[in-house]
C-alpha cells in the first residue's frame, strides 16, 4: 500500500461527553459518552436511527448539542483554525455539486485550509480518481463518489478520520479497498472512527466497538471481547434487541405448523 504522506503525527482522541440532542420529543442522542483512541479502527455500531450520524455531526460542529460536548484532540471542533488538518470526515458522499468537477470540488475545500493544488492531485491519485478529475461529479457512480469523499477526508492528512457508513452501497471490491485503507490509516497511528449498521463489516474492519441504540451507549468493548462467547452477530442482537425501532417477532414458530 502506498504512503499517505503523514510524517509527524500527533495522537488525537475523540472525546464525547454526556452528549444529548432531541428533535422535538424524540431523543436522537441521549447522554452519550465515549472516547475514541488513536492507532486502531473504532466501529460505531447501531441500528438505523440509533443516533450515529447525529453524533458525528455534533462532533464536527454542524449540529449543536442540547447538552454535553465533543472534543477532538482536547478542543471543540469549532475552535480548530484549520480543521481539515486535524479531522478528515466523510458524512455524505453524494454531497457534491453535480456540475462541478471532482478537482474543483476538492480545490475549493483545500483552499479554505491553506492546502495546495499538489495535495489535491495527491489525494485524487490516492483514491484512483486522477483520470476522471476533470469530469463532473454528478456523473460519478456511487463507488466513485465514495472515493471522492475519502479523498476529501484525506486532504489535510488528518490525525483523525471519521466516516459515516463509508461502505454503504459499495461493490465488494470497493468495500475491500476501504477496509484496507482504514486498517492502514489506523496502523499509521491515526484515530479511525467509522459508523455502520452492518456488524459483519465491523467484524472485519474494527478493533474496537462503540455500540449505540436509541441514542444511548450499549457497549464500549474490544471486538475480541465481544466475540469471546460466540458470534458477533449474536452478541450484537442481544445488545440491541431492546433498541430497534420496529422489532419483529423473532423467527416464525415452526412447531405450530407441524
Amino acid at each position, binding site marked *: 500500500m502506498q504512503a499517505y504522506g503523514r510524517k509527524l503525527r500527533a495522537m488525537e482522541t475523540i472525546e464525547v461527553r454526556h452528549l444529548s440532542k432531541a428533535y422535538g420529543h424524540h431523543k436522537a442522542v441521549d447522554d452519550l459518552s465515549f472516547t475514541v483512541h488513536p492507532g486502531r479502527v473504532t466501529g460505531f455500531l447501531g441500528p438505523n436511527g440509533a443516533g450515529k450520524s447525529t453524533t458525528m455531526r455534533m462532533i464536527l460542529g*454542524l449540529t449543536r448539542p442540547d447538552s454535553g460536548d465533543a472534543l477532538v484532540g482536547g478542543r471543540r471542533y469549532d475552535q480548530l483554525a484549520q480543521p481539515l488538518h486535524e479531522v478528515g470526515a466523510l*458524512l455524505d458522499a453524494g454531497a457534491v*455539486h453535480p456540475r462541478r468537477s471532482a478537482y*474543483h470540488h476538492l480545490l475549493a*475545500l483545500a*483552499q*479554505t485550509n491553506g492546502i495546495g493544488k499538489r495535495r489535491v492531485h495527491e489525494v485524487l491519485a490516492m483514491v484512483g480518481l486522477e483520470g476522471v478529475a476533470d469530469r463532473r461529479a454528478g456523473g460519478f457512480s456511487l463507488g466513485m463518489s465514495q472515493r471522492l469523499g475519502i479523498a476529501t477526508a484525506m486532504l489535510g492528512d488528518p490525525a483523525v478520520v471519521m466516516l459515516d457508513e463509508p461502505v454503504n452501497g459499495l461493490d465488494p471490491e470497493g468495500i475491500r479497498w476501504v477496509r484496507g485503507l482504514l486498517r492502514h490509516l489506523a496502523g499509521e497511528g491515526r484515530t479511525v472512527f467509522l459508523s455502520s449498521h452492518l456488524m459483519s463489516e465491523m467484524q472485519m474492519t474494527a478493533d474496537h466497538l462503540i455500540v449505540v441504540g436509541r441514542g444511548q451507549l450499549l457497549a464500549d468493548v474490544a471486538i475480541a471481547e465481544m466475540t469471546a462467547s460466540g458470534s458477533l452477530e449474536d452478541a450484537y442482537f442481544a445488545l440491541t434487541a431492546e433498541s430497534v425501532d420496529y422489532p419483529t417477532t423473532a423467527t416464525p414458530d415452526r412447531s405450530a405448523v407441524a
Partner: protein
Amino acid sequence: MSTLTSEWTKLRSLRSTTWFLGAAVAGMIGSGLIEAIAASAGEITPAEVDPFGGALAGLSFAEFVVGGFAVLAVTNEYASRTIRGSLTAVPKRWPVLAGKAVAVGGSVFTAALLLIFGSFLISRAVLDSHGMSLPAADGVPRAMAGAAVYLGFLALLGTGFAWLVRSTAGGLAALFGVLYGLPIVSLLLPHGMGAPILRFLPQQAGAALMQVGPSDLLAPWAGAAVLTGYAAVVLGLAAVVLRRRDA
C-alpha cells in the same frame, strides 16, 4: 482571504456562471445600443438619446440576472448539500458568508462596470460615426459607476436573503419583494405617509446613485450610505442565523 479564494474557485468552476455572464453581456450591450442605432437610422432624434447613450437601458434586466446569480451562489450549496462540507472546513462559518459576498458582489460590480462603460463607449462611437453627439449632463461617469455599485449591492443583498431562507425560490421572492414590492406598499399607506419613506427604499436609494440633474431622490452619497446600511443589516443578520442554526 483563503475563503475568498475558495468561493472564487466555486464560482468559476460552474458553467452556470458563464451563462449568467453571457446573459448580462447580451442584455446590457444589446439594449445599450438600441438608442444609438435608432438615432443613426433616423428613427429618433439625437436629443431623445439619454445622456448615457442608452448604457443603463438594460438595468432592470440586469437586476434579475444579478439576483438569480447571487441567490443561486448560496442556495446551490444547500441543494447539493455541499454546505456541510463548506462549514466543516470553516467551522466559524461567517468567513464562508463573507467570502461568498465578496466573490459574488465583487464579480458583479466588476462585470457591471465594464459592461456599462463599454456599452456607453460603443454607443458614443456609433453616434459619432453619424456625426451626432450625446446630450451633455453633469455627473454621467458618477451615475454609471453608481449603477455598477447598485448591482453589486443587489448581489450582496441576494446572498444575504439566500442564507436566511436557504431556498432559491424564497431567496428570489425576498429580494424582488423588497426591490419591487416595498415601493408599492409604501404608496398604499394612508395620508401619503409612504412618500417620505419611499426615498429610503433600496431601489430608490440605488436610483439616487444614478441621477443626473434635479430629482426628489436622496443625494448620491446618501443613497450609497443607505444601501451600505441595508447590506450590513441583512448580511449581519444572515451571519448570526448561520452561526446559530444546525447545518
